[in-house]
């Protein structure tokens, strides 16, 4: 469960940490708590999994990873777990999820593959197919980024 104070901390922190010498002090002041209380609360929220990571969210497309592909896999139900572990072992894979299937859509494993070119992404997908033994897969490139934003919670 999340407390009222924690919700306020989320609202404040999702605006980004201020670029002043004592940023936590500034945020804490606005929340009516002490700097120490805020730092402890952040650590506690990280321990409990409310904060996944404390750091910077970076746009990797600006860092030379210009091609990204969503590669989807039709894994057999009895081997999906093993396949998921194999696919997520690739360093080029940033995200790997098992998802529900829906109607005609039968691909149940999703991987985000990053590379410098589309060819590089395809080559990685091929290697992933060999490693996992899954031959039925699709490489879906992003033709356009229509939206990319950070989620704002408890608005």
């Amino acid at each position, binding site marked *: 469960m*999340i407390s009222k104070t924690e919700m306020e901390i*989320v609202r404040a*922190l*999702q605006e*980004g940490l201020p*670029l*002043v*010498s004592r940023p*936590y002090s500034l945020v804490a002041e606005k929340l009516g708590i002490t*700097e120490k209380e805020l*730092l402890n609360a*952040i*650590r506690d929220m990280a321990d409990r*999994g*409310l*904060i*996944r*990571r*404390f*750091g*910077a*969210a*970076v*746009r*990797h497309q*600006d*860092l*030379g*990873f210009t091609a990204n592909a*969503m590669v989807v896999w039709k894994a057999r139900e009895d081997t999906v777990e093993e396949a998921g*572990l194999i*696919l*997520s072992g690739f360093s080029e*894979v*940033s*995200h*790997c*999820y*098992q*998802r*529900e*299937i829906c*109607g005609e*859509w039968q691909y*149940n494993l*999703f991987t985000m593959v*990053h590379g410098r070119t589309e060819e590089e992404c395809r080559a990685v997908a091929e290697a992933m197919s060999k490693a996992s033994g899954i031959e039925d897969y*699709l490489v879906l*490139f*992003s*033709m356009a980024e*229509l*939206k*990319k*934003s*950070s*989620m*704002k*919670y*408890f608005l």
Partner: protein
Amino acid sequence: MDKLDRDLLNIIQSHFPLTAEPYAELAGMLGTSAGEIIKRLEKLTENGTIRRLGSIFDSRGLGYTGTLCAMQVPPEMVEPVAEIVNGYSGVTHNYLRNHRYNMWFTLLAPDKKELGRIMEEIKARSGISEMISLPAVKTFKIKVNFHLMEGRDDQ
């Protein structure tokens, strides 16, 4: 982007100091001044390399629920439909991909009921009923750090 920018980004993607004066601490690690670190972070935020400084929240940890949706949007309707879809604050990512299901977006909401309500509303407002919802069953991997290597072309 020079070596200091790269080193700074590499550190703060995973190890942002949770101490009273985080920028001074980063300055100590990198052999520069807190003022210089703040200046660099201002620049990297302004030019969009850093999307957000501070905490990356776990949507499920905060009690939110999410899904990945895909729609079949006729090419001539992509723009107006994207405008409808992107208007929801719970839609954080939206990409056009090379498949019959060409519009792929992530959707977050405080609960399943609200999630369903938004999906139905998007269908009604866009007039497109070909939409699938593929919620995650299991997360195998979420990696968000990209190591910047020396020698990569500066932009």
